[in-house]
């Protein structure tokens, strides 16, 4: 069988904020249906890396190919790229003035120009997929953190993305609500979704990640299967970080 091309291919990615270089030459490939887990100390550039992938942050240098499209090329319609890359944020960022259904249908209607009925049907299916079929009419303020994050995931899924980027999806949640979100992510993985996940949920990484990438100071220090990174890290910096999070 011929090897499929990567969904996401990052080469020599650099990003500076003013004088500080936050990403110092990142190379990363994400293959179809792969779940790549990104770990690293605070400030190492994990969020910036994800945000460069859909150009919420403008890269300073390097190339990013998404599904064959050079997203930094001058002629690229970035909105067309973005709707095929789902993004899930630490703080959910649901639209507070819209119901769960409204949150999910907005892009379906405004970006994909679906008629209302079709958009509603797609959104209802997406909400059902994250276990919230009965919450269509609820406003974000009426939902728990875990439910809000699942609506946010449904919002991304409804656009049938080629990949979904998760930036610490469970960090803002009370411990007892983390499980429901991780379960949805596990289901997604089963369904073959390509995912890049920044998270501190090591149990989830061990169970679900194909590959763990350790970042420090804007560089990828080491990457490999979860067992290798957590069990036998090669670099001192990785070892120090893994020791620290395992102890906590």
């Amino acid at each position, binding site marked *: 069988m011929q090897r499929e091309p990567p969904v996401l291919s990052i080469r020599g990615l650099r990003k500076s904020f003013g004088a500080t270089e936050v990403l110092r030459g990142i190379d990363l490939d994400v293959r179809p249906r792969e779940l790549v887990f990104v770990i690293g100390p605070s400030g190492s550039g994990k969020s910036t890396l994800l945000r460069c992938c*859909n150009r*919420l942050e403008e890269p300073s240098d390097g190339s990013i190919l998404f599904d064959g499209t050079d997203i930094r090329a001058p002629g690229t319609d970035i*909105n*067309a790229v*973005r*709707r095929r*890359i*789902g*993004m899930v*944020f630490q*703080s959910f*960022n*649901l*639209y*507070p*003035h819209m119901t769960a259904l409204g949150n999910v249908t*907005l*892009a379906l209607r*405004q*970006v994909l120009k679906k008629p209302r009925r079709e958009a509603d049907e797609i959104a209802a299916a997406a909400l059902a997929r994250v276990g919230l079929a009965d919450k269509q009419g609820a*406003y974000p*303020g*009426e939902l728990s953190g875990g439910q809000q994050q699942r609506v*946010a995931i449904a*919002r*991304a899924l409804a*656009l049938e993305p080629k990949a979904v980027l998760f930036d610490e999806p469970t960090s803002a949640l009370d411990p007892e609500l983390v499980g429901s979100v991780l379960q949805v992510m596990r289901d997604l993985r089963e369904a073959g979704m390509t995912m890049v996940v920044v998270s501190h949920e090591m149990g989830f990484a061990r169970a679900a990640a194909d590959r763990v990438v350790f970042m420090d100071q804007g560089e990828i220090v080491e990457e490999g299967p979860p067992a290798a990174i957590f069990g036998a890290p090669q670099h001192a910096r990785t070892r120090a970080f893994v020791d620290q999070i395992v102890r906590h």
Partner: protein
Amino acid sequence: MNAWDRFAATFLDTDVMARYLPDIAAGFATTVWLALLVVLAGLALGLALALLRSLRFRPLSALIVLHVDLFRALPPLVVIVLLYFAMPNAGWSPSGFVATWLALTLVLSAFAEEIFWGGILSVPKGQWEAARSTGLGFLATLTWVVLPQAIRVTIPPLTNRTIAITKGTALGSVVAVSEILASAQTAVSFSFNPSPLTLGAAAYVVLFFPVVLFGRWVETRFAWKR
């Protein structure tokens, strides 16, 4: 004659009131019309300026800020008088009505821009990012995600400011606009009795009390669960 009778004869002379009621009513209509035009144009211009400012194009923003600061600093009466008495020297002679309308519109637009802009800024960055990450463009994000949230927080200050500035229609009396106050003053000078002023005050209450109530209703209507 006791004090109350004296007061009534001076301020509540029903004969005088009845005689000048039609004039005050005409003034009332002028004030309503003027206020309506000021509110519509002032809020529309203020919103337009805030939207332009959200493009964050430096030179444009600087001009908008200049406009805002200028018309927030100038007393409305000064703007009216300038337009009415100075513009003719520049080859344009606005009527008192137009001068008052334009002056109040500019002043309201300045305050409204600042309030709308504050509302737009109050919407967390994450709202923009969430919307943009689903492929919505700048305008669609502004229209569907940011503005609805911005408008809600702007309603209370905007209502207060709008009421305050539309009451400035009374300043039109200085440049010969026959609105409520001017009609009342004219009636006073003809009748040698201040009762028409009472009528004028009543007219303002009739006009603005519902507006204040409307403002309250809108405030509660636009509150939503966070």
